[in-house]
C-alpha cells in the first residue's frame, strides 16, 4: 500500500516548527506505525537528511514511551492501542496521515515528536507511593485483599504514563493519570494510612505543573491506550474532598 505522511518537524524547543510531507510507497501492511517511521528514517538518512526524532522503546504497548497524535488522535485511530502497537493494516491505501507531538503546556516539545513528560515523574514523587522501607514488612498473605478489590486496583495500576489523556483533553488536564495512581493505592488496604496526604500532595503538584482543570469531557478515558476508567476521576474527587476536610481538621488540632 501507499500512504502520505505529514509529519511535524521542529528542530528544538525554540524552533517554530512546521509540517513536512513524505510519500511512502509499497508499504507492507503487517508493519507497525513506528516501523513505518523507521523505514522513512532509513530513507532520510541515506539522503543525508535528519531522521525524525520520536520516543519509543518497548514497542509492545507497555513502557509508555511512544507518544504522538496520528490523524489528530493520541496514538491514532485504534481504541486501546498505543502507536507502537498500531499496524498499517488499519489504514487505507493512499491515505494522508498527519503526525504531531503531544500539545500541552506541561509537555513542552523537545524535538520533532519528542516532548518532555517529566511533570508526571514529579507528580509521583509528590506522593504516588506507600511509604515502606525495604525489609521489615509483614508476610504477604497477612494482608488479604478481596479479588474484586485487587482486580480494580490492578485496572487502575495498568496506566503506562504515556500522557495521551493530557493530549486528548482540551484543557490538558492530567486528572486521569493522577486519579489512576491515587485509586490504585486508595483501594488497597496497604494504602489507607497515607490516603489523604497522598491525594492532597499529588493534586497540588499536578496544579503546580500547569495541567488544566478537569471539566469532565471524558476524552481522556476514550483515548487512553489502557482504557483507564472515568470512575477513577470520581474516586479522586472524593479523595480530594476528604483530603481537604482532613487537612482542615489537622490545622484546627495544631
Amino acid at each position: 500500500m501507499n500512504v502520505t505522511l505529514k509529519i511535524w518537524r521542529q528542530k528544538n524547543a525554540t524552533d517554530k516548527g512546521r509540517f513536512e510531507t513524505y510519500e511512502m510507497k509499497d508499504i507492507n501492511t503487517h508493519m507497525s506505525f513506528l516501523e513505518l517511521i523507521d523505514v522513512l528514517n532509513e530513507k532520510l538518512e541515506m539522503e543525508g537528511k535528519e531522521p525524525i526524532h520520536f520516543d519509543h522503546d518497548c514497542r509492545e504497548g507497555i513502557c509508555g514511551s511512544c507518544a504522538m497524535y496520528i490523524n489528530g488522535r493520541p496514538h491514532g485511530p485504534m481504541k486501546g492501542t498505543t502507536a507502537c502497537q498500531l499496524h498499517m493494516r488499519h489504514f487505507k491505501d493512499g491515505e494522508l496521515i498527519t503526525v504531531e507531538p503531544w500539545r500541552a503546556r506541561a509537555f513542552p516539545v523537545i524535538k520533532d515528536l519528542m516532548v518532555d513528560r517529566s511533570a508526571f515523574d514529579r507528580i509521583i514523587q509528590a506522593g504516588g507511593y506507600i511509604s515502606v522501607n525495604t525489609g521489615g514488612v509483614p508476610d504477604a498473605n497477612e494482608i488479604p485483599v478481596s479479588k474484586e478489590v485487587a482486580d480494580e486496583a490492578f485496572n487502575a495500576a495498568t496506566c503506562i504514563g504515556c500522557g495521551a489523556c493530557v493530549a486528548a483533553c482540551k484543557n490538558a488536564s492530567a486528572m486521569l493519570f493522577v486519579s489512576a495512581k491515587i485509586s490504585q493505592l486508595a483501594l488497597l488496604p496497604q494504602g489507607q494510612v497515607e490516603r489523604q496526604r497522598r491525594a492532597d500532595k499529588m493534586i497540588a503538584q499536578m496544579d503546580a505543573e500547569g495541567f488544566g482543570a478537569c471539566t469532565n469531557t471524558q476524552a481522556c478515558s476514550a483515548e487512553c491506550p489502557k482504557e483507564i476508567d472515568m470512575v477513577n476521576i470520581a474516586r479522586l474527587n472524593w479523595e480530594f474532598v476528604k483530603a481537604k476536610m482532613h487537612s482542615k481538621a489537622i490545622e484546627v488540632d495544631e
Partner: protein
Amino acid sequence: MRLESKTPEGPLAEQWTKHKFNLKLVNPANKRKYDIIVVGTGLAGASAAASLAELGYNVKAFCFQDSARRAHSIAAQGGINAAKNYQNDGDSVFRLFYDTIKGGDYRSRESNVYRLAEVSVNIIDQCVAQGVPFAREYGGLLANRSFGGAQVSRTFYARGQTGQQLLLGAYSAMSRQVANGKVKMYPRTEMLDLVIVEGKARGVVVRNLLTGEIESHSAHAVVLATGGYGNVYFLSTNAMGCNATAAWRAHKKGALFSNPCYTQIHPTCIPVSGEYQSKLTLMSESLRNDGRVWVPKQKGDKRSPQQIPEQERDYYLERKYPSFGNLVPRDVASRNAKAVCDEGRGVGETGLAVYLDFADAIKRDGMETISAKYGNLFEMYEKITGYNPYETPMMIYPAVHYTMGGLWVDYNLMTTIPGLYALGECNFSDHGANRLGASALMQGLADGYFVIPYTIGDYLAGMPYNKIPTSHEAFKKVEEEVRTRLKKIISIDGSQTVDQIHKKLGRIMWDKCGMSRTAEGLKQAREEVKKVKDEFWHDVKVIGTDEELNQTLEKASRVADFIELGSLMIEDALHRNESCGGHFREEYQTPEGEAKRDDENFSYVAAWEYKGEGLPETLHKEQLVFENVKLTQRSYK
C-alpha cells in the same frame, strides 16, 4: 588474575546469614558521607537505588529513557518466582534452589543460587507492602501459576503485566527517595564510560542525551544495573534501547565478562514477518500451561490448522517429554521447535513457526477462564498478527530473549574492579547456562532490595570519605576519550545506516551463534563479524553532530559495542566444547539430540579479560563446586 568468589564456608542454608553477620557495617550517621552511583533503573537498579537511599547513602541514578519507569523490566509479562509454598505443593527454598541449578544445566554457583531462593520470599512481602496488585484468589490470598522447568506452582503474577507492576513498585519507592532528596535522578542520560582512580571505580562519564554534553559524576562506588545484551542479535524481545554499552565499557576498563555465549532463546514469540521488522514480541511462556504445541505430522502440509485432524498432528513436546510435556524448559522447547521446522514441518507463510493451540483448554475450562488468564496476551497477539487465538491456534517461533552471561561478580556482587558492582541481568550470577521463567524478576529484585544494601557496606566501611572532584585528571582523560570516539563515529560519513550494519551483525549471530552452533560456523562468524566491524568504522553514516540530541548517534555508539561483544560471544561459544543450557553445540549431543555436557572439562565459569584493541582476550576460569546437588543429565522426560 585469581578469581575470588568470596563464597562463604559452611552449610549452604547458613551461608548468607553468617556472611551478613561477618560483613562490615557503616554506622548510620556515616552513611550520608558516601555517594553511590546507580546506573539503570529497571528492577535491579530502582530497587537498589531506593534501598540504598533509605539506608542513608546519597544516590545518583541514571537511565537513558525519559523516565525511570520505562526501563525494560516494565515489559516482563509472566511472573516472578518465590519459594513461599503457599500452594502446599511441596515447594521449599531448597527446591527452588535445586530447580534453578538444574534448569541452569549445572553452570551456576551454588551459594548465589541458594541465597536467591532464600530471599525470594522477602521479595513478595516487600512488593505487596508497596501496593503491587498481584493476582488473588477469591479468599483474598495470593494466587500462583506454574512455569517451565518446575513441577510446583510458585509463580506470582499480575495478569500478564507482572514486570510493569513490580517496576512501578520499585519506581515509586525510588520516587519517594527522590522527594526525600536522597536520590538524584538523571533520566535521558547515558553512561558511556567508567572512571577508575587508584584501581577503584570512582565515577562515570555520561552523555546528556538532550544536549549532547559530556559530563562526569564522582562517587565512592558504582553500581551497574543496565540489563542484558540480547540486542546484539538486532531482532530480540528486548526493548529497542537495551544495550551492552555500560557493561562493555566496564569490561574494557578491566571488569571480567563471564559466559557471554549463554543466551536464551525464548520458545514462544511471534514469528518474523518481514525485513522491516524492528523487534520481536514475546508471548508469555505461561501460555504453555494451557496451550498445546504441535505441527503437522506430514512435511509441507499446507492445510489450515482446523483442517488437520487430530491423528495427523504431532504434539511433539508431549510425545517426547511425557512428564513435563509442554512445560519443558525454554532451551529444550526452542530447540525442538527449530528441529521440527528444519524437518520441513513448520507452519505459516515462512515455515518458521509452530502452533500453540488453546482449543482443548477452552473446551475444558471455558472461554471465560482462559480469557481471564490470558486475555491481554491474546489481544496483543491479535493486534500484531490480525488473527484471533480463540478461534485459530497461535503461531509461535523462538527468539532471542535473555542473556545469562554478563559481568563476572563475586558473592557480594562486586566485579573484578573494586567498588564496581553489577546487578540484575547485566551480571552473570545466578542462572548458569539457562534461566528458568519468572526468575529474572526475582533475581533483579533480590540483588537490589536484599543483597547490595548489605554487601556494599562491607566495601564502603573500608573507604575514606573524601570525594574526588570531577576536575581530577582521571575524569578529564575519560571525558576526552568519550568525545573523541563520538566525533570519530560522526566523521566517518559512509554509505550504510546504523541499522543496516546492525542487521548484518544480527544475522550472523542468529545463524551461527544462535540456537545451535558448530565450530565451523563459529569460525566463519568470527571472520564475518571482523568484516562488519571494519564496515562500521569505515562506512557508517550518522547524520547530525555529537553536540545535540541525536538518536542515530546513540544507536551507532551502542552498535559499535555490540559488534565487539559479538566477537567475544563467538570466542566463548567456540571454546566451550560441550552443550549446556542455551549453548548448544551440534557436535556435542546425546543420541536423542539433547545437550551433552562435559562436566569434567567445562564445569567452570568462563571469565574473559580484555587485553587491548585487536588482541585476543584472556580466559580465566572459576571452577564450580557442587556439594549439595548431584550433577545429572538434565531430563524432562
